[in-house]
């Protein structure tokens, strides 16, 4: 079914290496491919250093990929692109960052912060229209008109993140990249922001690339999930497939690390520790194996066979 749909974003064998000297380079992302379809949420999870943020940044052209291609709406957007194409991308692709205080200009009012995209692209001809559009977006993210004339420091963390979302939404993007957008918030506020993003997606049909290290929140928001480790996409599939039948040992270790609000069982449980070296897994040797549906696992023939029998 998914095969007939045209992907909104396609990342093909993306490699992002950072040179740290003449001989040494860090392979932050080492051959990752995935697709995002219009209107869906793709969750990218992994520990710090797994390359999940790097992928987000490469997609939005903050980094020049070492090799591999990124396609957006059927057009190649990696490497050199025309000025026109750049402009189209900058309105259609938006990013929400982790720390809402660090990404909002402290000397600007919320009205101007949110409207900045409109100003740059000359999308509003009159002052009234500009204000109207900002108010509409603020209303959408659950802030009131009075908030528009305040400064970022006058808001709480959750409200600031709403402003970040509003700023991304006002451009009516096709794709939003949310890089750890909720990691810095309290648990109760995280839930508010996740609900808000889901609600907005329902209304606007925007696709979201949701980058996080917390699998339990990713589960709520994502349609499909990709699990990253050391720059490799080790497992990908629908949320249901990943959570009910995880195959790769790394995915299982991530799942086992999620704490549950249950003191009796939680005290006895120890998290499953995953060590690539100990298990002798070589990511370079692995190829993508189709498990079922949209569920793919990275590994050699024998590895995958063993994991499948272990997990069921």
């Amino acid at each position, binding site marked *: 079914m998914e095969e007939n749909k045209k992907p909104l974003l396609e990342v093909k064998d993306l490699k992002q290496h950072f040179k740290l000297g003449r001989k040494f380079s860090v392979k932050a992302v080492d051959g990752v491919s995935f697709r995002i379809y219009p209107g869906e949420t793709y969750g990218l999870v992994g520990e710090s250093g797994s390359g999940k943020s790097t992928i987000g940044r490469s997609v939005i052209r903050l980094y020049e990929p070492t090799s591999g291609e990124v396609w957006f709406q059927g057009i190649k957007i990696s490497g050199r692109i025309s000025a026109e194409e750049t402009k189209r991308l900058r309105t259609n692709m938006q990013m929400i960052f982790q720390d809402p205080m660090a990404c909002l200009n402290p000397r600007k009012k919320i009205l101007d912060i949110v409207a900045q995209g409109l100003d740059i692209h000359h999308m509003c001809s009159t002052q009234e229209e500009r204000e109207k559009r900002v108010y509409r977006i603020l209303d959408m993210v659950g802030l009131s008109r009075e908030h528009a004339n305040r400064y970022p420091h006058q808001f709480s963390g959750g409200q600031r993140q709403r402003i970040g979302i509003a700023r991304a939404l006002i451009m009516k993007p096709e794709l939003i990249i949310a890089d750890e957008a909720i990691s810095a918030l309290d648990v109760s506020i995280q839930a508010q922001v996740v*609900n808000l993003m889901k609600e907005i997606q329902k209304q606007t049909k925007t696709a979201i690339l949701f980058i996080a290290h917390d699998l339990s929140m990713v589960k709520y928001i994502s349609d499909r999930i990709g699990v990253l480790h050391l720059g490799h996409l080790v497992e990908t599939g629908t949320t249901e497939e990943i959570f009910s039948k995880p195959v790769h040992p790394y995915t299982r270790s991530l799942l086992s*690390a999620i704490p549950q609000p249950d003191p009796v069982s939680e005290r006895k449980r120890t998290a499953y520790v995953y060590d690539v070296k100990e298990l002798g897994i070589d990511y370079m040797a692995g190829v993508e194996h189709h498990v079922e549906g949209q569920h793919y696992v990275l590994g050699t023939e024998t590895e995958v066979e063993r994991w499948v029998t272990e997990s069921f």
Partner: protein
Amino acid sequence: MNKDKVLSIRDLSISFQTTAGEVNAIRGVDLDLYQGETLAIVGESGSGKSVTVKAIMGILSGNGKIKSGTIHFTSRKSGEEVNENLLRFSKKEMRRRINGRRIAMVFQDPMTSLNPTMTIGSQIMEGMRYHYKTSKKEAYDKAVRLLDLVGITEPEKRMKSYPHQLSGGMRQRVVIAIALSCDPEILICDEPTTALDVTIQAKILELIKEIQEKTGISVIYITHDLGVVAKVADYVAVMYAGKVVEKGLSEEIFYDPRHPYTWGLLSAMPDLDTDDEVLYTIPGSPFNLLNKTEGDAFAERNRFALNIDYRLEPPMFQVTETHYAATWLLHENAPAVSMPEALKERIKRLGKEVEFGGGK
């Protein structure tokens, strides 16, 4: 069984003088910590959980003022008996007698609590040399043993490493080793795993638990993550707007919560077993302590709020011998309100797991 009380906080109130006015960060907190047990303080940012432990350590910022209360610290270690109100100590005395030596603290971000210009070995040895005048040789041996205890491989090699050469999880292990270096009686962990990944978080929590079993140390945890609490705590205190709104044994808080705020916190946790479309949220944002409180500070975010909540602050109601909650819902004249259906079901399901999984 009569357990030894190590720390007992009574009626603690702290305010901060700011340009915007006086902020009453802590408004009458009572807490107890027993020998060898773990107390978890839970709450949103701004609930006063960090301020409480900073008061214990005597490291409140300059504009902080302790308005009332006592913090009694009792211990009998290596012949030196301490049974005193920590708030009466001067800063100098605290540094010499308590901080690091009897009560040690682990902060949230390991990179800011480590000195980037010192090797981790000398940072671990520093406390022992200062407090106990341990010889270099002895301190070195103990530092190596501690690194081994916190699960760092090849400890002798690592002694010469600098903080930037270690990963986040390793750094936090080093910080724990430093905290343990002077054999303190109390270890305070202020969001020790918030800056870390889930997988590493699980490992660090298991490590602290293991150390606790080995050394019999008492631990205070500060966190906003109830999952972490479930894993480590014996006692839980839920804080909101500078007050403890519910406290009790870990089982009581998780299986029989009474305060609407605790219900909200528990419901807001994502659950792997349900497929709810929308996550439960606590409406509004945390209480601003700059404002004066009339009645219950939680009332405006509380969908179960009664009329009296807006006028009178609820006292602590006793549920069981160990379980207390400050909500008018527990008053005998209150209407019968029970927790949200979804949460009830979730607890029921957890209870089942208890029967199958553990119990015996």
